């Protein structure tokens, strides 16, 4: 009896709650659209499961959002996705609130962004590192989605110049004339970095031995460390990681064995001072900043948008004191040459 009563209570409460809300819902959306013309440009950012403090591209994207808010007088918000299944509702939340631009951080959201962008043709979307992908997994450009890509090979080339110069001249602990790299999973953005890196080394120091490996993971540090220790045992003394969290294990191996490492995506010099000598950076913050500005100024462009040396979308990070002046000068020159088009870094791996 008591149980039946409780069930009844629950049922009535739920029904009442639903009924009340169905009736109430049109009002807020109506007011929202009425004020839509007067309000400032709204930009919503949805992180992937890495979260805001991932010391990588989610964090960089958020920096770009905050800078854009400050510089362009926008109204911006962020939602951290806790689970992959949150991608669709989180993107939908911003779209339903008539945001002008909704940014999905990371290629993991390609399918979610495709789903939501199709439902909201009047809202602009941007995907960092990705393009809308339909349920079959095929890329399908949409008229309201900007695909923000980076020329990772250019950033890889810049740090490759530094690594090659140091290996060739046997600077500091780099005594074996052998440099290595490790990717997470062999997907295009990862291999582009490594291809540029290898291209620079082959060009500047053809005698240097190059090794490459994969941790097959973007999270597990232990797997990255195993690959790193293996590389070091083969004589590597400069290790370039392109493997997210797993790559931190690769850097840890370098630190443990007293050799050098190169960070990726963001400036990772602080991850292991004295071990990390520089970083291959893609300026996700700049992509978010520029795309927000483009929406405000009406120059938003759907489809592929490339961030490269030309528009300061890629760079190399802060340098450790061990990096000699000639290596820095060579990297600066390479950056200028890439900008002018004199150097076009490869996108295919030299050493698999």
């Amino acid at each position, binding site marked *: 009896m008591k149980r039946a009563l409780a*069930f009844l209570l629950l049922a009535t409460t739920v029904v009442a709650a639903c009924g009340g809300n169905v009736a109430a819902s049109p009002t807020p959306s109506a007011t929202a659209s009425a004020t839509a013309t007067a309000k400032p440009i709204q930009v919503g950012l949805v992180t992937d499961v890495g979260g805001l403090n991932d010391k990588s591209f989610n964090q960089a994207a958020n920096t770009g959002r905050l800078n854009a808010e400050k510089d362009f007088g926008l109204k911006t*918000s962020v939602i951290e996705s806790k689970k992959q*299944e949150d991608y669709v509702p989180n993107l939908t939340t911003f779209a339903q609130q008539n945001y002008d631009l909704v940014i999905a951080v990371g290629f993991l959201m390609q399918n979610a962004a495709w789903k939501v962008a199709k439902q909201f043709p009047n809202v602009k979307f941007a995907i960092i590192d990705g393009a809308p992908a339909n349920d079959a997994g095929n890329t399908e450009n949409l008229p309201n989605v900007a695909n923000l890509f980076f020329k990772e090979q250019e950033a890889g080339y810049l740090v490759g110049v530094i690594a090659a110069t140091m290996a060739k001249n046997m600077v500091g602990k780099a005594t074996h004339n052998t440099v290595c790299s490790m990717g997470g999973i062999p997907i295009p953005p990862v291999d582009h970095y490594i291809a540029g890196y290898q291209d620079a080394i082959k060009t500047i120091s053809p005698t240097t031995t190059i090794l490459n490996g994969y941790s097959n993971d973007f999270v597990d540090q232990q797997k990255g460390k195993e690959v790193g220790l293996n590389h070091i045992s083969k004589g590597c003394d400069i290790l370039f990681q392109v493997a997210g969290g797993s790559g931190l294990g690769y850097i840890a191996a370098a630190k443990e064995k007293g050799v050098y490492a190169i960070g990726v995506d963001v400036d990772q010099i602080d991850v292991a001072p004295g071990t990390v000598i520089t970083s291959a950076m893609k300026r996700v913050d700049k992509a978010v900043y520029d795309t927000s500005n483009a929406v405000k100024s009406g120059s938003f462009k759907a489809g592929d948008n490339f961030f490269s040396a030309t528009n300061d979308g890629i760079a190399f990070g802060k340098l450790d004191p061990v990096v000699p002046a000639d290596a820095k000068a060579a990297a600066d020159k390479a950056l200028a040459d890439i900008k002018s088009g004199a150097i076009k870094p490869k996108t295919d791996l030299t050493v698999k």
Partner: protein
Amino acid sequence: MASEPQATPTGPATAPSVRQPTAQWARGPAVPVASVVFALAIGAIFVLLSGHDPIAAYIDLFRGAFGSPYDITETLIQTIPLVLAGLAVAVAFRTGLFNIGAESQLLIGAVAAGAVGARFADLPGFVLFPMVLAAGIGAGAGWAAIAGYLKAARGVNEVITTIMQNYIVVFVMHWLLQNGPMTAPNALGTPASAPIGAGAVLPIIIPNELVPLTRLHAGIFLAIAAVVVFWFLLWRTPLGYELRAVGLGARAAAQAGIDPRTRIVIAMAIAGGFAGLAGMIQVTGVFHRVFDGFSSGYGFDAIAVALLGKNSPIGIALAALLFGAFARGGSIMQANAGVSAQLVSVIEAVVLFVIAAELIVRVLTARRRERKPLEAIA
């Protein structure tokens, strides 16, 4: 809503629990409700410390979870796996077992459902769906029964085995889905399986004209059915009586002719079946495929859900709804009020802390009560 049922059931609190185990769940909605209120108060302090208005944050939290029909359906989508995984933990609790493996049981159910759904994708729905359903439930049940068997036959602590099973499934999934036998060649940028056949997909139950874009799927009916099955099984069948008897005292049950060992295996299998169903529903209702990193801890949240719900059917449903609302509302709160969604984790942790503290007190007082009559006999 929460305060109303609180008044009536506290009445029989003084009744001896052993003779009236049915009433046990009803004894104390006071503690769970108080723990939630307390946790919200602690959460408010953190909101204040972070420089925001707690009232506004909680209004946004509530609005995010229930503010529109779309929000309600999203909250329910979050609630469904929590209910089922909560039942998986509760069945074991009722039998005196601590099932920390709901996570792996859910995952293996999802893998099995995804594998069958993709392998036989061309079959018509009336054949394929029962197959996928059986695969999900069966895989979860079989997997959990291993832990039950080890406990029954070898006396291996189920806490240890179920935790270890979690790792096994996570790494097997890495293998299956990252360049393994289940990996789809074109997998949306993330290691994933091929999509399941259309016949296995749970339909969206609310028409798009009523609630645009809603994803609420028929899995909610399966979840409700599971709650009813849980109640009926435990309180209306001889098996349920035996399970609860083993849970209240395995030695006493053995004296009464109930072999605890077989009941332990059966209880774990049932628990795994509920969790496997949760995984199967996530595959057929939400994702339509399996991918690596599929669940982010439903099996662990489920422990909190079962404890907060006092292992009772309605309690679990309500606790799961609360946690589902937190999950959904937290995102919106972050978007609108600027308060980090991590606040929700703080609140959940405090709830769990209070419940656990109460549990410790109860176990200690129960021990003392048990000892007294024994001493009296001696």
